[in-house]
């Protein structure tokens, strides 16, 4: 006798859905955040700071888009980095080979990533957990080896060299470092705002239902496959925006951008920051990059330091930093409520 039994994997409750805030609240936060980011270089003269923020923008968008899959839908992709790589290479190649403006190149790059994600997603999203993880990883490796072997186009293991042209558009000159900084911050804030909207939309709740119980979701009339494919494509688009920022930052593209370790870092960032809050991955990105920069400065055994930290989060806290903070705040609120009553 076969029973349709739903697997009810209990995921810690998303703390942000408990108190719905109006949409303009997010826009307000975004404007304030953007203003702070823009004034940062004026307050601190450190040259390293703008570079750090630009890298945070690239990896933050990438990691947050991965969280749409991992945290909101329960799809653990080990190949999400391929879209970061596609973004970097697509944009870099378009700017080097085709005589197009930067906005056109960005739109075309995102279209390419979206089409790739539709094809790859159509194959992958039907697969369950571990199979989904491994097949996405396989596609990542496929794209990486195509980049390595298609030397005439991609430069092989040397990457795209010779720099990227940056024609001025709308009065923005991306060869100017300040312009590039503000442009990256703008992409980051807009990208986060759009992903936040996805997470808080009815579609975002469809994703949560699929994460909690896909069988039940299909029995209330949701086409699970289509919803998963949609979020896979959306996440790929935002990951490519991260790749585009990276490509502008290094003025080229390197095979490492499409290597599986990028996906690994994305997963790591999500573990560090936590997947139950929207901004968890952003916090994780800042943590990882700080860790990365200090560890590489202090020791050659970068991997060892990273390993210890990941063990601390995985075995010690058993959750990401933001999950930990939210739980702590919640328990404090509850205990103070208990005292007052």
């Amino acid at each position, binding site marked *: 006798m*076969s029973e*349709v039994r739903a697997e009810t*994997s*209990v995921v810690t409750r998303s703390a942000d859905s408990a108190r719905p805030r109006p949409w303009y609240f997010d826009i307000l936060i975004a404007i304030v955040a953007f203003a702070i980011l823009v004034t940062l270089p004026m307050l601190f003269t450190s040259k390293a700071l703008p570079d750090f923020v630009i890298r945070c923008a690239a990896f933050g968008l990438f990691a947050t888009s991965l969280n749409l899959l991992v945290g909101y839908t329960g799809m653990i992709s080990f190949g999400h980095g391929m879209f970061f790589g596609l973004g970097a290479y697509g944009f870099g190649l378009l700017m080097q080979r085709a005589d197009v403006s930067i906005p056109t190149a960005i739109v075309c790059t995102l279209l390419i990533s979206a089409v790739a994600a539709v094809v790859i997603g159509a194959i992958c999203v039907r697969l369950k957990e571990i199979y989904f993880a491994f097949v996405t990883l396989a596609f990542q490796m496929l794209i990486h080896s195509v980049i390595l072997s298609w030397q005439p186009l991609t430069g092989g293991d040397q990457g795209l060299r010779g720099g990227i042209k940056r024609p001025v558009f709308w009065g923005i000159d991306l060869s100017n470092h300040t312009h590039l900084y503000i442009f990256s911050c703008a992409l980051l804030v807009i990208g986060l705002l759009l992903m936040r909207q996805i997470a808080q*939309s*009815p579609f975002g709740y469809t994703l*949560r*239902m699929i994460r909690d119980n896909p069988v039940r979701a299909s029995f209330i009339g949701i086409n699970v496959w289509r919803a998963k494919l949609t979020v896979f494509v959306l996440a790929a688009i935002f990951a490519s925006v991260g790749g585009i920022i990276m490509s502008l930052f290094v003025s080229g593209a390197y095979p490492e951008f499409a290597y599986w370790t990028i996906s690994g870092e994305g997963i790591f960032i999500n573990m560090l920051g936590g997947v139950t809050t929207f901004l968890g991955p952003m916090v994780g990105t800042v943590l990882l990059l700080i860790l990365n920069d200090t560890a590489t400065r202090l020791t050659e055994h970068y991997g060892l330091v990273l390993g210890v930290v990941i063990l601390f989060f995985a075995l010690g806290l058993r959750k990401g930093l933001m999950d930990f903070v939210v739980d702590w705040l919640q328990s404090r609120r509850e205990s103070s409520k208990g005292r007052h009553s």
Partner: protein
Amino acid sequence: MLQVQHISKAFGGVKATDDVTLDFATGSLTAVIGPNGAGKSTFFNLITGALKPDTGRILLDGTDLVGRSPPDIVRHGIGRAFQVASIFPSLTVGEAMLAAVGADQRRAGVLHRRFPLAETRDRAEYAMELLGLAGKRDRTAATLSHGDQKLLDIALALVLEPKVLLLDEPTAGMGTEERWRMIERVHELWTREKITVVFIEHDMDIVFKIAPSIVVLCYGRILATGTPDEIRKNSAVIEAYLGTEHHAGAA
């Protein structure tokens, strides 16, 4: 009207459903009983599209449902609750209900607006009220009691405003008192909503008291159909089911 015509389903050599033909009149309340392994749950899985019958037709108001996907069948008006409460553990009761209504209104893919949608509120509210969950709307589903989780499961099916509601053992895992409360709710919902309800139940007292018509399944076949009185007097039923039960009770 839900019509099941000559459906069969075999798993390997085992015929879980064997040439079953049944009509469920619109607005009827029917209990499906039968010993363990009689094919009751398989019967539900066939109707809801979780399993595809090997042969036969399933007609809802004349539309053949065989071969359609579960979401498609849900949209045609067949709702279902599960034996093991099938809910969304991390969502609150209210969120789950609102999201379910949104899915039914084909707004599960809406990206440009915020959850919850205003137009989903009334139906969600009504279903929560009907099943006594309104006071627990802000509770996370995972923290609900077993009985409330079963109610939420039913509410999730009911909120889609189905023509036919299939309840797979609504009282499973409950104590006697809780069983009666649950089944009274089911009965009340049937009288108020005037929809077709089919439920699987093990407790004979409940079945005979509450169901105007009963279907007895045994080894995938229909053993008997009829009113409680007819079933009680049916010798085949006594032998195959009630007899063994009583026998087991005596031993």
